[in-house]
């Protein structure tokens, strides 16, 4: 029992990061009808800025992350204004390729700007904020120790706050209405007097900012490199598909489910061992395969995603 609980509680950081990345991907998909492959690398670029500020210039963490997010916003805006707006007649696949080109440019650009910067040391937010020496809450429950990482909790809290604010904006602000209209049909929305240029620009900048925030969180558990967000990004795409692109909350639920499921399946071995049995099957090694396979089956059964709506096509 405690193993399962720990498996869930240990995933707070990854869940927080995946949720942010997924939301960014969904926002871009809905407003610009493309899957943004550069999401991860824009985030990595911002993260390099944050790392430099925090480590080299000893800027306080709040300002450092804020500046990083501003960089993310800037890159997002540049991408939308300079590239996407000029290429409005590019089809969906073409837009994907453009984002891939961006990945290339950023991958090449990072070493040029930051030197040769693999493995920059990056402590958890919790340490930077100096919220206490003890990194974990731990207490006994049901015959085992429950450990909650304070950093994970902090990050999850930040994520929940940010996502809630954006959801409220989507629901009640004029911008949110514009986003929903653009997502449903960009052309009609434009005809109805919605400034879709503005909508996409704001969406790209929000996506950039969220990406950098996610990267800065994730940097504490993974070495920074231009491609260190790739796995998260792939999971984000899959989460978005699992939840269904037609809503905003579906992908987020997907983003919570995927790391949880992986961690739970991965913990099966130690559960079996602790309950006296033994297993010849290495669950930890196969956990991602099982999760992806389960997801594939789920999507095959519900092609529009778990929370998606079916759209009929007229002949």
């Amino acid at each position: 029992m405690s193993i399962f609980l720990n498996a869930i509680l240990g995933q707070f950081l990854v869940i927080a990061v995946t949720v942010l990345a997924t939301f960014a991907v969904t926002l871009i998909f809905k407003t610009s009808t493309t899957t943004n492959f550069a999401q991860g690398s824009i985030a990595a670029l911002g993260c390099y800025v944050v790392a430099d500020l925090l480590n080299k210039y000893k800027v306080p963490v709040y300002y450092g992350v804020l500046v990083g997010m501003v960089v993310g916003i800037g890159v997002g805006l540049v991408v939308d204004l300079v590239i996407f707006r000029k290429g409005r007649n590019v089809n969906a696949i073409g837009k994907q390729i453009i984002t891939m080109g961006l990945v290339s440019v950023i991958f090449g650009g990072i070493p040029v700007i930051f030197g040769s910067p693999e493995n920059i040391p990056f402590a958890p937010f919790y340490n930077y904020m100096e919220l206490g020496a003890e990194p974990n809450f731990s207490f006994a429950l049901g015959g085992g120790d429950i450990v909650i990482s304070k950093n994970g909790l902090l990050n999850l809290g930040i994520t929940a706050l940010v996502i809630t604010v954006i959801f409220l904006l989507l629901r009640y602000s004029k911008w949110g209405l514009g986003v929903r209209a653009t997502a449903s049909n960009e052309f009609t929305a434009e005809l109805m007097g919605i400034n879709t240029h503005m909508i996409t620009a704001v969406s790209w900048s929000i996506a950039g900012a969220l990406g950098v925030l996610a990267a800065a969180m994730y940097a504490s558990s993974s070495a920074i490199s231009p491609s260190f967000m790739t796995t998260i990004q792939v999971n984000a795409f899959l989460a978005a598909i699992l939840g269904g692109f037609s809503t905003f909350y579906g992908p987020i639920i997907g983003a919570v489910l995927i790391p949880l499921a992986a961690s739970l399946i991965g913990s099966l071995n130690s559960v079996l061992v602790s309950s006296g049995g033994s297993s010849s099957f290495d669950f930890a090694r196969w956990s991602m395969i099982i999760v992806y396979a389960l997801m594939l089956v789920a999507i095959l059964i519900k092609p529009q995603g778990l929370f998606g709506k079916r759209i009929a096509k007229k002949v």
Partner: protein
Amino acid sequence: MAGLLKNDYLKAVAPRPPAGFTALSRLKKFFAQPANQFLILGALMLVLFLLNKINSNLVPSSIINAVATTFIYATVAIGFCLLLGYSGLASLGTAGFIGIGCYTGFYMMEQAGATYLVALLTALAISLALGIVVGFISLRIEGIYLAILTLGLSEILRNLLMALSSTIKISLANIKLFGVKVDDKQVFLLIVFMFVVLLILTGNLIKSPAGRAMLAMKNSTSAAQAMGISLMKYRLLAFVISTVYAAVGGLMYVMLIPNITTSTSQLFTLATSLNILAAVIIGGSKSLWGTLAGTFIIYGLNATVLNRIAFFSKNPAIIVIVTGLLLILVVMFYPGGLAQMVKGARAFIKRKAAAIRRRRYGDED
């Protein structure tokens, strides 16, 4: 001068020969056949190989290696070209399919001790089955959803490879090819041979009813069905071809670069799928020559040309940036890729020539 005069006179009196019976038009007809073009490509590569064998200063081995790499990825890319350009199906699972080819080759040739031919057949069988599965998925899910789903499948395959074996390592000394022991030079010939054969088969296929049926399916599924084209048959076919080609590419890759670490190799990640996609788009998704050119730009240009330029060899990061920018610019301004560019250039030359002729001869008003 004298010959000119006679020709002027003849042209004035008997202006045009019947079509198809001059030496030039016969030559044109010969070169217009895609199969002949591909054979010539193969012959050129053979010449390259021989030149390298005679004197490695003439054609350095690095070029031979780059060509081999390009051809391997181009094999994958032409399968993908059929999928994307002709059937309108997007897939990001290419890397996984390549991985299957790699692992099958490794398992059969290294661990089971089979010959190349048996390994090839096994890889074909496995990828065929995989292609059928993905094809069935594509009947239910379309567009970008399909792309991301295949990405998931590719991730499964990558994780599977990592779970199955940490390194994929082949010693060429154990492999017999048609009864002959091979070294890495002969692997190049094998790659060229396989590539040219697949190129010819693909070229024939896209000019046949099946290719047209795929195009019909891409443009309008309902019209295609009303014309008697079975969506299931051709979607399965498209996916089977793309997975089979990818597996063949993987099999050849493992022979060219016989030591791959599954957990760190970029080959099985999203990057490869995206690069293949980019190659096809840059080249022009409906042109085999374009696809080859696109693959060369992404995989071959670096080793053959850019590395010889001092500026680029000092700053390898710049190459990556340039490739990225090139990708963005091509997609933004030439959505049809290099093939469209060449077509445009040809039309431009034709237009200019017509204008010159008009200026010279004038038209009556």
